[in-house]
């Protein structure tokens, strides 16, 4: 039997709201096409430029469509382009811009071919936004995969470096296990509620269609939490993080570290605080336990690391723990605090990674801790950003990190999770041990790092060996490092813009405490 086509009326599409997504998708296709043109200029200049353009456009559109308050899902309820989405989107776009800039001279881009590299980057970005925006389960899953699959590839793009491939493979396999688990969880939730849209799920839970404590639902939530926790590298699903961060090309690591987290926590908030908000009493303690475990493991894991990328990876695990605390409380304050910290986290991590890249490219010791030795004397303009980033990550006052932690603790206490606040500060105390180690290596010369040093490698100097020359050879990296370090301090002293944004975002989700 057949249906006349006339019966199918296409859904009305709110192109305005959709525009940021379109910008990046279109961008990626254009970039891909342009990338096919031969010619070094095109490859190394035009392609990144176009990528940047599309990202900037996206940012512009995001700001254009920025509109506080609860927004109805668009296109048959599969996407919600509210301030939460857009906030996360902006973070992701900024991370993308940074990645583009850092990739200008990256081996990875050359190996993969600039067109492909950048279009995949844009694809992943789209996926992230899709994930954060998704308001039904299918979109969620698609978004998640769209986020991950390009990243699997990008991690492996330094095809001649064994560790890069290893990172790619590990990320792929573990990631797929994670998404399979997630899928199953989605299936269970669908089964329990019979609904795909988050709103429908929420209403199903609130109505007596399914009880709050139905094992089917709760198991579904468990598997779902696992899947998302994996992406956010929450312990005990964190183990891929150090390896992948270390193995992947550093620009990609930077991008992953900040953007993936943003997207993952975006959906975490939307799903748990909104769709499943009612059963907070059930999942709250579990997530709190996860947060604690994450904070502890992340911080202790980072202690004896020598590879800076690995150290930052562990620290990012710990940071995920802090962020999760904001989700646990399931309150508007928590939502704001989490988003705020995501922004702060982006700023300080980018600064740190930029310095790592700058050193890694010229130092014989790669990203080893000793590659920073006496940086304070030789290259203060790199040492300062690194120092500021480290202090901010540790949460020293007058840096954005301090206010971020303050906000999170505030939310935790207000949400009757005071002990979680204490856990956060204890973690912070431990974290000082390794952050200060980095600082000491840079400023307090002659300081021996306990572990044996790695064998020096052959590096093709970016330029002559003089620091200034290196800097001139990769100005964008230093520029980013300095700019974001400055931002770290700025937000530490004058956080109002972030707070305004956070306040808008706080209005996005209804039915929060």
């Amino acid at each position, binding site marked *: 039997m057949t249906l006349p086509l006339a019966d199918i009326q296409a859904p009305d599409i709110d192109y305005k709201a959709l525009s940021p997504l379109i910008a990046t998708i279109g961008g990626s296709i254009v970039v891909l096409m342009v990338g096919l043109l031969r010619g070094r200029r095109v490859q190394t200049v035009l392609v990144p430029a176009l990528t940047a353009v599309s990202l900037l456009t996206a940012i512009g559109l995001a700001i254009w469509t920025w509109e506080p308050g609860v927004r109805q899902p668009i296109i048959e309820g599969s996407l919600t382009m509210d301030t939460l989405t857009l906030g996360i989107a902006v973070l992701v776009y900024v991370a993308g811009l940074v990645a583009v800039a850092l990739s200008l001279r990256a081996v990875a881009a050359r190996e993969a071919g600039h067109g492909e590299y950048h279009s995949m980057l844009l694809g992943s970005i789209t996926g992230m936004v899709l994930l954060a925006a998704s308001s039904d389960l299918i979109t969620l899953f698609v978004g998640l995969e769209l986020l991950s699959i390009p990243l699997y*590839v990008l991690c492996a793009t330094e095809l001649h470096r064994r560790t890069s491939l290893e990172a790619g493979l590990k990320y792929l396999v573990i990631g*797929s296990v994670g998404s399979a688990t997630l899928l*199953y969880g989605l299936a269970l939730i*669908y089964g329990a509620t*019979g609904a795909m849209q988050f709103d429908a799920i929420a209403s199903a839970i609130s109505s007596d269609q399914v009880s709050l404590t139905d094992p089917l639902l709760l198991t579904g939530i468990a598997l779902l939490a696992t899947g998302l926790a994996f992406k956010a590298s929450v312990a005990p699903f964190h183990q891929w993080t150090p390896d992948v961060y270390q*193995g992947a090309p550093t620009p990609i690591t930077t991008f992953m570290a900040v953007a993936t987290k943003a997207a993952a926590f975006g959906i975490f908030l939307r799903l748990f605080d909104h769709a499943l908000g009612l059963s907070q009493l059930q999942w709250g303690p579990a997530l709190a336990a996860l947060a604690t475990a994450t904070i502890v493991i992340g911080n202790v894991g980072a202690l004896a690391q020598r590879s800076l990328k690995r150290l930052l990876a562990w620290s990012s695990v710990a940071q995920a723990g802090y962020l999760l605390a904001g989700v646990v409380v399931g309150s508007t304050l928590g939502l704001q605090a989490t988003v705020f910290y995501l922004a702060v986290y982006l700023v300080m991590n980018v600064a740190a990674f930029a310095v790592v890249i700058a050193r890694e490219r010229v130092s014989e010791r790669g990203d080893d801790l000793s590659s920073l030795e006496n940086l304070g004397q030789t290259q203060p303009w790199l040492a300062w950003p690194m120092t500021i980033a480290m202090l901010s990550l540790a949460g020293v006052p007058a840096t954005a990190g301090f206010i971020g932690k303050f906000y999170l603790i505030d939310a935790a206490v207000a949400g009757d999770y005071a002990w979680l606040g204490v856990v956060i500060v204890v973690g912070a105390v431990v974290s000082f041990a390794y952050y200060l180690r980095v600082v000491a290596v840079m400023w307090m010369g002659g300081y021996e790092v306990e572990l044996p040093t790695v064998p020096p490698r052959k590096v093709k100097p970016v330029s002559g060996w003089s620091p200034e020359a290196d800097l001139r050879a990769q100005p964008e990296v230093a520029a980013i490092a300095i700019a974001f370090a400055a931002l770290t301090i700025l937000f530490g002293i004058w956080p109002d813009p972030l707070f305004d944004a956070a306040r808008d975002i706080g209005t996005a989700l209804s039915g929060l405490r």
Partner: protein
Amino acid sequence: MNITWFLVLSAFLFVIGAAGVLTRRNPLVVLLCLELMLNAGNLALVAFSRMHGGQAGQVFALIVMVIAACEVVIGLGIIVAMYRNRLPIDIDEMSELRG
């Protein structure tokens, strides 16, 4: 035939897939096991859609197939690249990054 039967079956398939991931060292096979896990999810989805009498589950299953295909493609791509670099096709060999 009650829905529960299908669900239990899917649960077993999921478990088998997971066990495979944990036990096999050949990445190709590991990929296959991932397929198993996804398919288990699919079965559950379809079963639920049957239960609820709505087709959303089936659509989901369809899309999952697509995604599974993508994962396979990428996975195979990485394996090929490894092979090109004369890396051992054994995931236990890929353990340089640790600690």
